[in-house]
């Protein structure tokens, strides 16, 4: 008799999802599925709106990564206008994206994931959150909030309080960097650097000790990786070309343009999830599984291009090999990327081009179809618009980072479950706490944000079901 364990919904991720673990006739785990259970229909909603509104509209999809959609929409708009935007606008958009990645990674590491690392997998789930972290290490909790605040404040200094009001627009940006904003950023940079130093030191000690097993079983499997790279293979987050590498570091495809994404990315659907399953087309589905996001970006690049970040990348490669194949390495990759962001922001402040008043190219609609791409904190984000002669959207396709990690998230959950349910599960067996904690943490490696495709459903208690092959409920747990 086959049975299914369902974890529904998953806590401390954005949106609404559940996990089911499928057992075979002998009670051994055979499959795992990460379900996204609410449909958002956002692409359909965009139809009929002017392309000039897309940056403002898509930025309101959710409060977690508004900047990512803002930039992808603005870049798509640049191409509809057929303009080359001013260098200062490029620099300011880059700074915006770096600040966004910094604050998003800070939230993921300090507040969502570090309670798992620091309080222990077996600790009381009611305490294994940022409040437990505050009790255990208040300085770290406060520093994490300050780092998140640093990134968030840069977003506000550049785009204003209402970042959704589309500071980045087709052709450039609306306002330059003020002297006050520059001064504030420069003043706070040292503290931000000190915080990530603290986090890196702490996390590396944990990797060398209590987290050794998690590195092996939290999604350690071969897959492809995709991300933007610069012209010399450098780490990229805004421009560049797309590169795929395999789990050995072999470059599978390089110099790919976002305009041709249909040639190399397919989008499969499954009846049990509303989230699409993108895959690398030449390898087919599901063999074309690939990962995106901080881990993928570090795996596809040759180097980062700033001294401290390159040093940290070298350290990570020494630990994990030239290619890090464990999803658990997403956590270290986030810290390395925070370093890259801080150094990148500083370099942009020091670039005279950033302070030019020429920040926007103006033009009328010159193309009726365009694809824009940028690296969101969670991975590569594509916006594809087709407009009519009046500039009204008649088709939108968004390929979001969390969707692209969908196959890998499923695989990660399955690997963890097989590790923590090594033998057959009897009909009356309880669902081990250790499994629940780690399966959830496995998903959190990817820091998934489901709001792009689903409605953020608010509080998400954990619901676990063990079901028989015929759908009979054998046991369930809530917390």
């Amino acid at each position: 008799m086959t049975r299914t364990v369902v974890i529904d919904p998953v806590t401390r991720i954005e949106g609404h999802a559940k996990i089911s673990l499928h057992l075979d006739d002998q009670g051994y785990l055979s499959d795992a599925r990460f379900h996204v259970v609410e449909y958002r229909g956002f692409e359909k909603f965009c139809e009929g709106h002017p392309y000039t509104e897309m940056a403002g509209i898509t930025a309101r999809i959710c409060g977690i990564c508004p900047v990512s959609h803002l930039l992808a929409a603005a870049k798509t708009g640049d191409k509809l206008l057929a303009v080359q935007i001013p260098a200062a606008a490029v620099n300011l958009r880059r700074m915006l994206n770096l600040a966004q990645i910094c604050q998003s990674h800070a939230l993921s590491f300090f507040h969502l994931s570090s309670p798992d690392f620091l309080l222990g997998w077996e600790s009381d789930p009611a305490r294994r959150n940022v409040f437990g972290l505050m009790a255990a290490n208040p300085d770290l909790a406060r520093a994490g909030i300050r780092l998140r605040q640093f990134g968030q404040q840069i977003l506000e200094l550049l785009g204003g309080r209402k970042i959704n009001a589309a500071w980045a627009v087709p052709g450039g940006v609306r306002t330059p960097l003020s002297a006050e904003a520059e001064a504030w950023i420069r003043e706070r940079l040292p503290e931000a650097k000190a915080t990530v130093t603290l986090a890196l030191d702490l996390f590396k000690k944990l990797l060398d000790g209590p987290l050794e097993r998690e590195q092996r079983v939290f999604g350690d499997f071969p897959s492809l990786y995709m991300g933007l790279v610069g012209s010399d293979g450098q780490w990229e987050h805004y421009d560049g070309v797309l590169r795929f590498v395999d789990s050995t570091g072999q470059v599978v495809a390089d110099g790919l343009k976002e305009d041709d994404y249909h040639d190399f990315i397919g989008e499969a659907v499954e009846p049990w999830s509303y989230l699409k399953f993108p895959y690398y087309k030449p390898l087919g589905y599901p063999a074309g599984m690939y990962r995106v996001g901080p881990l993928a970006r570090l795996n596809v690049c040759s180097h980062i291009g700033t001294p401290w970040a390159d040093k940290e990348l070298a350290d990570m490669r020494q630990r994990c090999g030239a290619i890090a194949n464990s999803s658990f390495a997403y956590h270290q990759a986030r810290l390395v990327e925070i370093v890259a962001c801080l150094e990148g922001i500083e370099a942009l402040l020091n670039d005279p081009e950033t302070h030019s008043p020429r920040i926007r190219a103006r033009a009328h609609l010159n193309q009726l179809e365009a694809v824009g791409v940028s690296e969101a904190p969670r991975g590569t984000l594509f916006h594809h618009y087709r407009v009519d002669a009046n500039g009204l959207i008649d088709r939108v396709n968004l390929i979001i980072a969390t969707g692209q990690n969908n196959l890998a998230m499923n695989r990660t959950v399955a690997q963890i479950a097989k590790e923590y349910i090594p033998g057959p599960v009897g009909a009356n067996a309880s669902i081990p706490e250790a499994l629940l904690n780690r399966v959830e943490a496995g998903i959190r490696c990817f820091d998934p944000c489901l709001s792009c495709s689903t409605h953020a459903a608010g509080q998400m208690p954990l619901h676990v079901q063990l079901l028989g092959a015929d759908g009979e409920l054998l046991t369930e747990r809530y917390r």
Partner: protein
Amino acid sequence: MGQALVIGFGNSLRGDDGVGLHLAAIATEISSSRVRAVAQLTPELAPELAAAARVLFIDAWQQAGATPQLQRLEPDGQVPAFSHQLSPLQLLALSSALYGAQPIAHQLLVPASRMELGEGFSAALLTQLPEAERLLRQWLHPGPPCTN
């Protein structure tokens, strides 16, 4: 003593869910209080709470047949699990635990009936807006202390 802080939150692309942002915009126009309009409550708001003397959270409320409510928030020490977003009580607890300060807190809840994807408010919410605005003004410009 810190100033008053208003935090309206929600998603203006989900119909009535955007009412918190709408009322935050009104608060900006009619008062000198510090006003935040955000998609959701996140940890970096905790220091702002700690610096405020009193805070008002404004949110949509999925409560059929209700009328707008101005309620005192009394942290109960319970800390449920959370995702990227926090509840007002969690944010107050975070502020208290990290910075040792907790403002007097209220929440203005506005009954919402249409939260599907789309802009603009439902007819039902529009009929509730005048009362919600009255309660907002009452909080911003208090006479006798609010006790409910």
